[in-house]
């Protein structure tokens, strides 16, 4: 790694941040219903949708109604997507004549895509017909991100409103997210990706006669349209088995930049939008900085360990300076590392290199990012929600220290907000840890392993952390397409989704009804460097307390054997 790599990474992150600020301002206009340049084109479509569905866009909802809408929309999505997969054998747009998907895999995939996770137990090119990919998976890529953004916006309204009963209309927020934000950005991204060589065709697979006289089956498909939204909507579900490591999904260094940029864009923009909606840009900046501190720490650890010598190899006379196993040459180590940090911090979960073959400490950073609930930028909307839980917890800790009722943005937090935050923070973590414990204790869990010993433990942990965090990336060596994994991972997926969003909406409803207390001399300043340190510290401590014991047996133990040159 050269100094040029560091400069290039820094320039990339700065440019992404700059564009995220602009998008944040744009998204504020979208969710406040302001008129702007795209309105004349999209507004008629938006109105048509409300008319067809019988939605009164001026009618706002209480938090319970908003939550009910969220739950029903998710369940309806699961049922429809599950049936579509199981019936694909009888439906059109299936040039490879792929059969219907088995029930456990179909259920897992449906839940996974509806919860914005896109965990994939299957390999896309050998399982899903073009119809399923487009009309099933792509659709959920849009709406699962859209409804996550809706929930995030509702939570922000909890802070901006005073003595109000309602937190917005979920159908309006969903429709606006999709029509004004996700579709326009996806069109731009898809066209840019095609210019780099990403596929977009309905042609059936082609058999090539290779130069040495062999045969090679080349899978095709409408990939660009799905990849654009899979990155922008923090979905991450690949068109092909190896996701964005596949040359058809991510053919050049430039396409890699576009995709990595798309992963970070909306999660970052959401934070700035929060500042704009509060009319308090400094607050948005402070939240962004707290996240960025954690992001840079994680990225540095990954880069450092990927360039560490592997003593098991150097001991036997090999000289090399970078871990290229599972990485593509056109990206190299720095840009694979950046991607792995980006995809696990946001709830994206697409990969451009195989995380299973990363150095142990890199894997631990990924596990940590997902375990804390993906709050470093986080998923579209839901990452911000997760971060607010940590802010509430931090303000509580600060309140204890200075002996005042905890408050943030003029809203005082009571026992109700505290208990809701704790449910949302602890439930997914506990689910992940307990299910991992079950999986390492029973035969069906162990039989899926690709690596033995502590790395095997990491494989299982990674699967449950990824699903409970609604991330979707994998230590892909684990064979998770079994009834055991498909069902237990589904439990983790559902917990991760509902145990964070529903408490957030409850908090939003409660906060909206409260007064906004004016700032006084004794108010803890939440826009300064102290706030950044406290929140980042609380996140690290909370994560460390919960996961250290199991990390000691997994990645840390593996790291120690790496240092001593041992193998297993």
């Amino acid at each position, binding site marked *: 790694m050269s100094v040029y790599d560091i400069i290039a990474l820094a320039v990339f992150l700065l440019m992404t941040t700059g564009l995220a600020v602009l998008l944040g301002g744009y998204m504020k206009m979208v969710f406040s219903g302001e008129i702007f340049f795209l309105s004349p084109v999209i507004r008629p479509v938006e109105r048509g949708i409300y008319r067809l569905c019988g939605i009164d866009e001026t009618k706002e909802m209480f938090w319970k109604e908003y939550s009910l809408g969220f739950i029903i929309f998710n369940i309806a999505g699961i049922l429809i997507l599950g049936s579509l997969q199981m019936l694909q054998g009888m439906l059109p747009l299936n040039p490879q004549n792929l059969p219907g998907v088995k029930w456990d895999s179909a259920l897992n995939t449906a839940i996974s895509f509806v919860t914005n996770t896109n965990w994939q137990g299957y390999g896309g090119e*050998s399982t899903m017909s073009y119809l399923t990919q487009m009309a099933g998976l792509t659709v959920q890529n849009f709406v699962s991100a859209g409804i996550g953004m809706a929930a995030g916006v509702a939570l922000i309204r909890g802070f901006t409103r005073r003595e109000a009963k309602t937190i917005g209309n979920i*159908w309006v927020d969903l429709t606006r997210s999709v029509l004004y934000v996700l*579709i326009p950005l996806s069109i731009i991204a898809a066209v840019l990706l095609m210019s780099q060589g990403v*596929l977009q065709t309905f042609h059936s697979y082609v058999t090539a006669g290779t130069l040495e006289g062999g045969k*090679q089956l080349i899978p095709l498909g409408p990939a660009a349209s799905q990849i654009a939204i899979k990155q922008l909507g923090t979905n991450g579900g690949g068109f092909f088995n190896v996701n964005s490591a596949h040359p058809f999904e991510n053919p050049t260094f430039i396409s890699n930049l576009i995709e990595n940029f798309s992963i970070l864009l909306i999660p970052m923009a959401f934070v700035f939008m929060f500042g704009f909606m509060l009319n308090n840009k400094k607050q948005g900046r402070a939240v962004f900085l707290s996240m960025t501190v954690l992001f840079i720490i994680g990225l540095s650890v990954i880069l450092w360990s990927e360039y560490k010598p592997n003593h098991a190899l150097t001991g036997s006379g090999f000289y090399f300076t970078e871990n290229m196993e*599972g990485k593509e040459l*056109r990206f190299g180590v720095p840009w694979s590392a950046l991607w792995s940090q980006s995809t696990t911090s946001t709830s994206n979960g697409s990969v451009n290199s195989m995380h299973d073959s990363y150095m142990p400490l890199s894997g631990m950073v990924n596990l940590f990012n997902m375990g804390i609930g993906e709050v470093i930028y986080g998923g579209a909307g839901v990452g911000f929600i997760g971060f607010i839980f940590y802010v509430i917890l931090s303000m509580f800790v600060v309140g204890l220290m200075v002996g005042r009722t905890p408050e943030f943005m003029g809203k005082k937090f009571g026992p109700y907000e505290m208990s809701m935050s704790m449910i949302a923070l602890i439930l997914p973590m506990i689910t992940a840890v307990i299910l991992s414990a079950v999986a390492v204790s029973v035969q069906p869990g162990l039989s899926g392993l690709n690596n033995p010993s502590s790395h095997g433990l990491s494989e299982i942990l990674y699967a449950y952390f990824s699903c409970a965090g609604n991330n979707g990336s994998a230590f892909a060596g684990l064979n998770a397409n079994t009834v055991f994994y498909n069902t237990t991972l589904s439990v983790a997926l559902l917990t991760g989704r509902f145990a964070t969003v529903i408490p957030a909406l409850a908090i939003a409803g409660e906060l909206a009804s409260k007064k906004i207390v004016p700032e006084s001399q004794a108010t803890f300043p939440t826009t300064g460097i102290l706030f950044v340190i406290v929140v980042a510290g609380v996140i690290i401590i909370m994560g460390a307390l919960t996961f250290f014991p199991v990390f000691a047996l997994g990645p840390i133990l593996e790291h120690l054997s790496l240092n001593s040159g041992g193998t297993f």
Partner: protein
Amino acid sequence: MKQLKISILMLLIFTIITGLAYPLLITGIGIAAFPHKSGGSLIIRNGTVKGSELIGQDFTRPEYFHGRPSAVNYDSALSGGSNLGPVNKKLIESVKVRAATVRSENRLDDKSVIPSDMIFASGSGLDPHISVDAAILQCERIAAVRKIDKAVLLSIAGKYSERQLPFYGKSFVNVLKLNMALDGMEVRK
């Protein structure tokens, strides 16, 4: 019940907009603006498909440049990496075997440094590239088998080398294009 009705209607409408209209629009733009690239960058010679510029092929014969190790033997119907952890015995063993193979094929001594891309398998198993160093290392062997001057090979390899960005990053070559050039087939750089 009202919420359920709205949910289902919304899903149907968004299926039409994002599941059908959107991919068709993108496909249309692809056909109009990037017909070759959106179709899979296929290399067609005399009416038959020889491969895709983006997908690596398995090269084992001595007269061709060899690509990176692949966990799926360049079977593009599968795609995948080894997914072995860094201290897994299987990985250590295969790295040693790969290094020994590269050294014996190219008559290198036991202490020679081998570029990391030639001993570690790619993530997709279909990586079309090798580093320029890895190409140079194979020139001697190919020159001997093909009975041509090594300088010619080096110049072809130089001609096909590309960088991550014109002013930054690693340099690498596309193995399939390079080998087609060796066989006298013109390929777009």
